[in-house]
């Protein structure tokens, strides 16, 4: 099975103030900007948030700044369509406000992923999920499940490509319904292997008396 790099962009290592900022501060900026963008929606707020995202990317370093435009290259047609639609309905200010808000939120959320190690994200998630303990769930297991889900997306994409290639090699068409079954089978097999590997490494094996 093939592996694929993450869609939203993997972390770019660095030691900038943005990289070193604690996780809660990053989330606070993200939540704060998101709230402001929703409550005071308008072209100026959107523009300000876009500038803020550029400033923060620049603060995070040259390589992170270079990654700013990444998702726009594949999403530009969607944004252009949306902008045209909004322009027609609400005029240029409306278009700027809707598209600008979307792009700014996307960029700020990406910045969190680009500058934070996934181990830190998972640790943070485990901390945030601590209240789950009161309903009998294990916050560490919850965080690991999310990490596994993130990692499985590229694996499933790889399985789809493999199955598609195999079908074409046999001269079969790319009927999505016919391809679904082998993709599910190979995904389940992958999940099984992953489960075995986790068990073999003793991950999540904890002494029950351990706090």
């Amino acid at each position, binding site marked *: *099975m093939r*592996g*694929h*790099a*993450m869609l939203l962009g*993997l*972390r770019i*290592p660095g030691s900038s103030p943005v990289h070193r900022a604690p996780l809660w501060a990053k989330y606070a900026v993200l939540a704060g900007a998101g709230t402001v963008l929703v409550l005071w929606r308008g072209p100026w707020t959107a523009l300000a948030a876009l500038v803020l995202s550029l400033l923060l990317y620049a603060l995070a370093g040259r390589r992170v700044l270079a990654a700013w435009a990444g998702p726009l290259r594949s999403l530009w047609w969607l944004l252009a369509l949306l902008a045209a639609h909004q322009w027609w309905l609400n005029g240029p200010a409306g278009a700027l406000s809707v598209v600008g808000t979307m792009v700014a939120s996307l960029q700020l959320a990406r910045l969190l992923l680009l500058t934070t*190690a*996934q*181990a830190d994200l998972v*640790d943070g998630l485990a901390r945030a999920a601590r209240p789950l303990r009161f309903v009998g769930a294990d916050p*560490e297991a919850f965080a*690991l499940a999310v*990490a*596994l889900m*993130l*990692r499985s997306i*590229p*694996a499933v994409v790889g399985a789809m490509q493999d199955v598609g290639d195999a079908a074409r090699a046999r001269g079969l068409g790319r009927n999505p319904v016919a391809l679904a079954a082998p993709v599910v089978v190979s995904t389940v097999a*992958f999940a099984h*292997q*992953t489960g*075995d*590997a*986790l*068990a*073999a*490494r*003793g*991950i*999540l*094996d*904890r*002494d029950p008396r351990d706090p």
Partner: protein
Amino acid sequence: MISFHAASVAVPAALPGDPDRVLLRPTTLELSERRIAVIGCNGSGKSTLLRLLNGLVRPTSGAVAVDGLDSVRDVRRLRGHVGFLFTDPLSQLVMPVVVEDVELSLKATVRDRRARRAAALDALAAVGLEHLAERSVHDLSGGERQLVALASVLAAGQRVLVADEPTTLLDLRNNALLQRTLFGTLEGQVSQVVYATHDLDFAARADRLLVVDNGAVAYDGAAPAGVEAYRRLALGSVGSGDGSPAGFRSGSC
């Protein structure tokens, strides 16, 4: 010391009324050699034999123990003592960045984050991969991935390594590198290596060799003679040089 006491594995038959399917017949073994190779045909029970050593498969009857740790009763401590390496490193690596994956193995034992990072870097250095610590696991070559997986499964200080066809997906160069790492670089940390393989040159480097056939150990002894026994078993008594179809039919594979 690895010991099997009349350990067997059977799974319930697919149809009710049929006899249970036996994956491993009652097997008694005492393995104390440093390098132990397990060879045999596809579906012969090699993997089942290896999986017993880490508690991934429980014996249906009998018992398996490694250095006194029972594979059912002491399974948690056993997994801290026996690392298990799979064929496909991608199904084994969980985190997207090399050092984070190694850290995951240490989570249960090392609480402090900084100490955990340092221990993970040590584990990578032990297989000569410290320069890859910050890389994405998707950017590595197959051989590098397998070595990262090796560092991960041994990170918590495991002294015994069980490897199920660890070189099958590797090219010649990476195959040699993995063998060098297993038998050279890690000699100090790992006291015993048990590996299944279809690479007969790799198998011949073992101190003791087991040929598994049809759920039972068919040969147990020195490696070169064992490889010959396996050739006869797989290709028939005429040997591999003949290549006649009749020779293939007479083998038990």
